[in-house]
């Protein structure tokens, strides 16, 4: 049962982080609403954080540096979510929709 010991290898975590990242890319290009795009962007950030944490666990000489970096990514993600969602609320108040296709002011 070689499948039961895959959690000891770096490649597992890297492939899984790539999987989450590309799911986020797929959501980002297919979503129609702004909130859906924001959710997909959070998914991409989760994939990036998994990459950082796995390099930190397996390769880095000092394993606290990657954790600190991931903590900073989380803080940036929190700031991004707060700003992005307040922009979504402001856009909704202006346009009465959050559909990205209908947010056109200058189109003739």
């Amino acid at each position, binding site marked *: 049962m070689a499948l039961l010991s895959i959690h000891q290898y770096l490649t597992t975590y890297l492939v899984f982080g790539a999987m989450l990242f590309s799911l986020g890319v797929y959501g980002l290009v297919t979503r129609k609403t702004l909130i859906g795009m924001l959710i997909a962007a959070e998914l991409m950030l989760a994939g990036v954080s998994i990459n950082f944490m796995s390099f930190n666990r397996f390769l880095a000489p000092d394993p606290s540096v990657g954790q600190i970096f991931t903590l900073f990514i989380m803080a940036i993600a929190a700031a991004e979510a707060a700003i992005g969602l307040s922009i979504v*609320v402001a856009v909704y108040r202006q346009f009465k929709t959050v559909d990205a296709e209908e947010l056109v002011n200058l189109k003739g």
Partner: protein
Amino acid sequence: MTPVPPPTLFSADGMVGLVFLIMIGVTLTGGIIAATAERLIRALSGIVICFTGVAGFYYFLNSPFMAMMQILIYVGAICVTISFAIMLAAPEEKLKKSPTNLLSGPIGFMIAALIFAAMTMLALKTDWQASAKIASGSVREIGIHLLTTYSMVFELISIVLLIAIIGSIVIARGGRN
């Protein structure tokens, strides 16, 4: 990394591996729901499941501190904020078929698949060189690093968070009568 014989299912290591496989399944399911669900509130539930699974990954990566931070910040703060935004800004979901743009069909899927294939090839082909550990990465060391080596970044990130909070209040308040 360690050339030990693979464990059987009914041993401690085998159970750890089984938990890991279940966790991969749960996290992937959550991610797929988050990326593809039609209704936004279902996508939000999917991303909650996905983030909880990612916290489990952090446990496997020797960092229970980051696992707790993940649940506290992502599940506890960001997802709740997104749910407030869904309640405030997406009252009715008509699910109408608006004209699809170029990227939303198979081309978007192909772009994501290409990115995944490229990164997987990169992860598999590269000969990763592990270096010798000079520290253990405990919570105590993280705290010492945050207050000595990375103290400037720590202060900057708190200023960024403060500005983000004030700015989001200002943006969301504007245009209100």
